[in-house]
């Protein structure tokens, strides 16, 4: 606290008010452009492309779609094509070529209800193996899609018949460090977190954090699972050390209550997996750094390895708005450049300084 400027600073570089509700915003890889996804008041969906130019966000393209668009990802697209995959309120999965966004290059009715969350892997040089998209929906299913296969998911994680279907709020890929290994993590409204192993098509691990899971993210998709951050409704987030899985205790974790309300999003800095930002329901952003413990695993009383959680340090916290910040995205190309959009119908470009010294 003594020298505030030696800490990372969060600067609101650009603020752009929008005439629709924005649900998701994403940087287009290898560019200074970003995409905003949302819905107009009249009940239709919208895709907008902006470019950062001379300290302003210039609208380049706008397309209206029949259904409100909830979420999008570039994770399964090649660097050259940079097609965005989106999920809408009607449960459709579309892949759009942003150069010609009128007709989707891939479309499928993925879910019966709204697609809450989407993630991709295998594109952009992140993650070995096939490009795959995972979607999580209110209908309680988590499905994995391969853009090369129409209509049918390549994996489907759904509750067996008769069980209550929980609303899946968030999905994330991870563990994609070679051709075969790949994991999907899903968070549900009842606080369940499930880790699916796509190689063995099995549920690898599950836990409950007692509050609805708003967002899960691995610190990196394309390494051996290392850390997982899960944020929850009551302003708490959990960091799991995924390196050591105890047979009964599972993964070691640390939880931190930071925000006064829901933590809507967590995003790890692409250039440093140990720094992440959480976005809260009160319009605030917290920048964290995870510190590893001296030993990441130890033997418990039975001589079984058990993980040891580290600690998190708050690097910076700022308040942007009074409304929740619903989406957060770091630029994959420029360290410290960040995009967030909230329910105050605006999108912001943030600059976070001094991330290297953190």
């Amino acid at each position, binding site marked *: *606290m003594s020298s505030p400027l030696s800490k990372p600073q969060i600067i609101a570089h650009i603020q752009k008010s929008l005439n629709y509700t924005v649900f998701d915003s994403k940087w287009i890889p290898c560019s200074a452009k970003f995409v905003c996804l949302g819905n107009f008041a009249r009940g239709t969906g919208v895709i907008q492309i902006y470019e950062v130019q001379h300290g302003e966000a210039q609208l380049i393209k706008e397309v209206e779609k029949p259904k409100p668009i909830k979420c999008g990802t570039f994770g399964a697209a090649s660097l050259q094509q940079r097609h965005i995959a989106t999920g809408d309120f009607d449960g459709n999965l579309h892949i759009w070529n942003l150069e010609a966004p009128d007709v989707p290059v891939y479309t499928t009715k993925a879910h019966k209800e709204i697609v809450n969350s989407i993630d991709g892997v295998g594109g952009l040089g992140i993650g*070995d193996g096939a490009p795959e998209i995972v979607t999580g929906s209110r209908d309680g299913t988590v499905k994995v899609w391969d853009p090369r296969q129409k209509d049918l998911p390549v994996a489907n994680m759904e509750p067996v018949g008769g069980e209550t279907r929980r609303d899946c709020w968030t999905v994330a890929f991870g563990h994609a460090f070679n051709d075969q290994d790949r994991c999907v993590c899903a968070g549900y409204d009842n606080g369940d977190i499930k880790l699916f192993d796509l190689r063995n098509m099995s549920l690898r691990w599950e836990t409950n954090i007692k509050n609805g899971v708003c967002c899960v993210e691995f610190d990196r998709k394309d390494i051996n699972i290392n850390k997982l951050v899960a944020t929850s409704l009551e302003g708490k987030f959990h960091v799991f050390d995924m390196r050591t899985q105890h047979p009964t205790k599972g993964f070691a974790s640390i939880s931190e209550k930071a925000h006064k309300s829901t933590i809507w999003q967590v995003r790890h800095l692409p250039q440093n997996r140990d720094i992440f930002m959480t976005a809260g329901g009160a319009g605030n952003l917290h920048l964290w750094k995870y510190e590893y413990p001296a030993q990441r695993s130890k033997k418990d009383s039975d001589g079984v390895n058990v993980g040891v959680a580290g600690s998190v340090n708050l690097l910076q916290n700022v308040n942007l708005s009074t409304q929740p910040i619903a989406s957060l995205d770091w630029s994959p190309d420029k360290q410290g450049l960040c995009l967030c959009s909230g329910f105050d119908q605006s999108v912001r470009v943030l600059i976070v300084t001094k991330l290297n010294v953190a």
Partner: protein
Amino acid sequence: SGEEGIYPHLIKFCEGHLEKLNPKSRALRKEIPVATEASFSKDEWNQIMDDLRTWAEETKKSETLLKQEPVFDLLKEKIPPVRSSISFVPLNEKSFPKQRTNSSKHVLPRDYQEWDKFDVEEECNKVDGVLKIDPPAILNTGHPNIKRAVDASLLSQQEKFLLASREKDKGNEAFRANDYKEAIAYYSRSLSILPTVSAYNNRAQAEINLQHWHNAMRDCQQVLELEPRNKKALLRRATVHNHMGNFQMASEDLRMVLQEEPNNATAIQLLSKIERKLSDCLPEQQSKGKKILIEELEEQEEQRACPVQPSQPVGGEESSAAPAERGDMGNAQKKPHSRGDGGPHSESSNSHHGHWRGKGGTSDKYKVTEESKVANGSSKRGSTASVQGDKRSGVKGATGGGKAEESVNLDAPCGALPPHLSRLKNEGNLLFKNGQFADALEKYSQAIQGYTDSGIDSPEDLCILYSNRAACYLKDGNSQDCIQDCTRALELQPFSLKPLLRRAMAYESLERYKKAYVDYKTVLQIDISVQAAHDSVNRITRLLIEQDGPEWREKLPDIPMVPLSAQQHRREEPPSEEVLQARAEKATRDAERRAEIHFSAFKQEGNDFVKNGQYQEALGKYTECLKLKPKECAIYTNRALCYLKLERFMEAKKDCDTALELEPGNKKAFYRRALANKGLKDYLACSSDLQEVLQLDANVQEAEKELEEVTVLLRQSLANTAQDKPRKTVPIKEVDGDEDMTDVPASESSCTRDNINLKPSSAYEFEPQLLPQYLSDQLDGHTISFIMKALDLHLLGKNPNLVYRHLHHLHTADRFSVVLMLLEKDERRYMTQLFEHLSAVESTEFTKGDVQNLANKYI
């Protein structure tokens, strides 16, 4: 505060106290508004904004590049196929999911019912598939599973760069998490995509942490190859050396680091530690100390660390040290030292030449000051190997002035050179300055090549280029090439200072002292203030006295103004024995030095005996000399003289042969062998020897006289014995005959080929397959039409097969297709006619189809 229940002072106090107790307490976290321009100083803000702007511009550019690149589908082949089956992974939606699972897919944990259905075989298979092995905890330390190499062959440069830096980031993160093996795996991936200095450096550090010294060493070497003075790599290599017990090398590296960055705390700390260790283990190492040092320096050749310039101020000492085997500093440094010792000896032996003594004295004084520095240095080196740094810093100071001229600006214009050449030159200068002489050499060579290609007429610039390249050669110890380049430079710009000086140094290093002396003297005539030249002249004077005795001046070629003519006299001068000395080891050098003193003494005595006519005694002395130095040409010729006087011609001849082997152009040796041959009555050999002498120097009157005499004798002997003489001309005649044979006399049909200088007697004798060969590149439309006409009118009727063969071979001639295109209408008509006629002819040798094929090639 005005509000109920809120007491600002209390809050402030509590917070203050809390901060003391627990500075990270959550209660202290305060929401702050997002930072704006006002939160930063102007500079900071500008920096941030500039940074962003440049990034935006750059990305825009790279994005357009990305779009321009073709989308290749090859990439898709690498991608694994779509997951084969639709797999359903049932979820277990229970409030306590850990207690009840009923899925066979479910591995952890199991309930009792599931254990009842437990299928061991199936489970085992499953276990093999995953990491789930019996030690129940799953350790996701999967680095063995990480592929160390990435196939990036299909990626564009930009993608490679991105990927490589991403893999490096992963490595850094793993490194920070203390997972060094994983870090190494990711660094290796990064390097397999695109080798970078930082990735090598980081991998080295990870290897160090894992104590894989050899791997770490390899990585450091890689870095230093890419970037010779990389501080981190040097520091890390020092650490590795330290751990491997090579303290000397470690301290060398650290010194290098400190030279770059004098305040590097780590380096200072490590160095002091190592020096303590060194001094501990020095006593038992002392005898070996020197040897280790030399080895090490050779090993480190790639570092090219000598920033020394061949500029004037460095002068004498440097010039003798630099060209010696690179890296072999120990020897090089020793050399002036030993010479210094040698000085007084020669002085005493030549003490009867008073006036030279004075000069020698002053030169000695010079020597002493220099020597003391060097000697001082080498003693230190013996103990701590610190001299390199010391010496270099010393030299650096001295060269400061000379260095200033080397501009850092790579694009600075240089004289009349076009930009790319001047850039090459400047790069070369920079490299030279950085001590990368080989690289600089290449740049200069390129520049010279480019210069000659571009055909610019600017001798000054070419002269400078040559001169600079000469400096590189000098640095690399390649004195021969240095001399060559200097000579070229001097041809372009006679009497330019630097090339002269460099050549002098090169000569000196080759121990051709007389030439060096001449060059130095010339330098001094151009600029009297060149201290290096003064020093060197003094030193060489002494050496020459030592070498050639009192008359050394007479043996010296004319010094001033005409250095080129001076070189011609040089041939007869025997090259000194010290060429060997330069390469010899220090141990043998001492012995040699002693031998040299004896040698010159013996030689002097021998010469004196000769003067007094006591040949037998002189012979003994010379033989003694040769025992000491079997490669001394002058002694052989001198001894040959003695043998001649004693009429022992066989031995004399043998000596002369040896002398000529050592020095093929020695005319004394030729002359004496001639005399010996005369004595042996081999007049023919004698006369050829004499002719050689006269060829070398037409002014040797004795030789002429002898030749006349011998020719008479030869004629006499010829009359009696063999006719050797004409033999010489015979081969020439034979050659003439051969040439004639190829020029076959002309005949009637040869008119067709007159214009190309070929005269086969007739088309029948002429071999068609040789046609292209004869024509070589002389073919033109005229010739073709001549050939066509000749074939059509003269040959077709008589021998259509031959016509076919001619045509068959003609089109393989050089330039045929070009000429064909340029044919005029008439000529084309002839050709068509010929082919028409030819196709009308029936023959066993070719069919109509063949003719048609051939015609297609012509028409």
